């Protein structure tokens, strides 16, 4: 098998590690939840959770709704939640939305209030002690500094200067000093791996990823802050092919990554994903 299908073998290795991490999180934490944007990465995570627990995801799946997501995102979310029997929780900061927060006014404030704060509110209410997230090292320089398990304090802060040691696969334990743990089961995957996996497993894909009129979305965010890239890729195979040769970063269409130098670092240190 390894001789005839090196990609398949490689994906199996990635998958096993991710499944082991997800099972560790379930065993170690009392009240975990997974974050789901409906994008390719977090959909892959939900799928891995289904695999890890033999079909039924045993914890809630959170969607952070800023009210300005693409209509395709809501459609995809509701359809799949039903199909996969997910316990969907929507995190929404309605209070901030009423005050007219917008990227035009202040993008940093908008991301922090509508995403980070919305999540924080739900976490406080539901007392989740672990959040399973689909970030990957290859997405952004700051995310490459992450661990598989990454504790957050009561202010939600990521103390990147003093992260606990993560030796082998002995991930950090829950502690009273952490309000919650971020768990990153696909940290070691690349964008290309995710698409290869989507293809191999036949996972459903949000239609925004496929090219229409020479443009497609490579990373899904909020409508005002996400722009499509030039592409003619209309199938998963074409996306894989495009990525094998592309030199454009994945999050090139995401405004919060590059508005100012270190904006992503500052967003993340406050609890952004």
């Amino acid at each position, binding site marked *: 098998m*390894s*001789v005839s299908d*090196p990609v398949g*073998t*490689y994906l199996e*290795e990635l998958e*096993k*590690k991710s*499944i*082991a991490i997800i*099972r*560790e999180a*379930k*065993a170690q934490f009392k009240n975990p939840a997974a974050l789901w944007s409906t994008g390719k990465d977090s959909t892959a995570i939900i799928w891995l959770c*289904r*695999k*890890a*627990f*033999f*079909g039924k995801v045993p914890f809630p799946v959170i969607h952070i709704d800023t009210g300005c997501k693409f209509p395709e995102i809501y459609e995809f979310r509701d359809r799949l939640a039903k199909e996969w029997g997910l316990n969907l929780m929507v995190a929404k900061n309605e209070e901030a939305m009423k005050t007219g927060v917008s990227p035009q006014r202040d993008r940093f404030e908008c991301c922090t209030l509508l995403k980070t704060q919305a999540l924080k509110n739900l976490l406080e209410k539901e007392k989740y002690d672990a959040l399973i997230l689909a970030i990957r*090292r*290859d997405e*952004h*320089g*700051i995310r*490459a*500094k992450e*661990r598989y398990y990454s*504790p957050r304090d009561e202010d939600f802060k990521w103390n*990147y*200067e003093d*992260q*606990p*040691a*993560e*030796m*082998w696969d*002995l991930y*950090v*334990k829950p*502690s009273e*000093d*952490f309000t919650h743990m971020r768990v990153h089961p696909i940290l*070691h995957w*690349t964008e290309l791996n995710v698409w290869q996996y989507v293809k191999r497993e036949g996972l459903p894909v949000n239609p925004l990823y496929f090219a229409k009129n020479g443009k497609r979305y490579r990373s899904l965010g909020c409508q005002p802050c996400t722009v499509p890239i030039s592409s003619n890729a209309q199938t998963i195979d074409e996306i894989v092919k495009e990525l094998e040769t592309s*030199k*454009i*970063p994945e999050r*090139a269409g995401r405004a919060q990554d*590059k508005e100012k*130098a*270190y904006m992503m*670092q500052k967003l993340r240190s406050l609890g952004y994903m």
Partner: protein
Amino acid sequence: MSLSKINLVVIGHKDHGKSTLIGRLLYDSDAIPEQKLQEVEAELKKAGDAGFRFAFLLDTLEEERRGGLTIDIMHTPFKTKKHLYTIIDCPGHREFIKKMLTGASQADAAVLVVSAKEGIEDQTRQHAFLVKTLGINQLVVAINKMDQVGYQQGVFLKTCRSLDEILAPMGFKDIAKVPISAFNGDNVFTESKNMKWHNGSTLVDTLDSMVKPLESLSDKPLRGCVQDIYKQEDNAIVVCKIETGMLETGKTVCFSPSGKTGVIKAIEAFGTRLKKAKPGDSVGLVLEEAQDIPRGEVVSYPESRAKRARTFTANIILFSDVEMRNGDVCVVRCGTAERKCRVEAILTEIDPVKLTIRATSPRVLMGGGVGEAKFLPLEPLCIERHSDFPPLGRFVIEGKKGPVGTGIVLNVEQDEVPCAEAA
């Protein structure tokens, strides 16, 4: 074609050029997206910096770039003709040892960067010693900043000689050394015209020829760590991560230290059943007769079963801020088990920077110290010699906010009380 995967940790004293070397490797191998380069250039321009800094490709935190030092580890993939490497960049500063250890615990091999200009310094010795203590046996040395010493062979040879004096006693013998300038790119990815006296082998060639993927663990006796048990209406699935050996359906297995036994009825994966499971697999075991198997148990075959440890000795690396005393009770995490153990005796203490024995039977191991200690498990524990079963021969010592130290097991005195007689 399938490339084998190698995790490579880059170690060495601060400012000897670890991040610059990795930045150079990525740059020369065309692994950096154009937009990333533009971003780095713009950032440098703003800071009023004229030259391009390769380290900026790795050091992405604002504090790292402004301060010119790496604060936290970074994983970056990098491909050669032979291997798919993941390079782990580590901070060289002495305060960041636990981050360096985190990076090293994921590595199959290490690259030690030593500046030809500055020569061997504290963390050159300390990092080499710590990776060896963690069980990393593959090492390649890059003698950096050759451009700053006029590319002189004499300086290179002198640095090599002093390195051999410290590396050989650690057990690193016949280590390949490559003279490079990460800043100018000499002998990193392409052969240098400035050092004709060198044999021509670049750092990348040397890595490709010297570094090998770790040996497979599937030929060893079976060991698996129970992660959890999922109880369903009609059965119970014992979820287990296989560490060594092969698990097969139909065989009788032993769970240690409880001593329970059972016959594997099925190995479950989602939507399918497996005949066998191999190291790295996390699988669901269904036993002929359902039993309550708790997290932390070790699965093995009766003929080569995992035994309880009466005592064990280990090389301990303590992170800063903590100390360990004779008689202390600590929580040891090994595999999925967490057990209270008492420190019976601290046998030696080694100065990891000077590489000298500080004391024999010192009673206390100071923060940041390295030494050999003997432990007595106060609760039943299966732990193995690192040389026999690496994944079950390493552990962490728990603190309030994560591990405060780590250990590699040298010897185990096993309890002869057998598991319940196998069926």
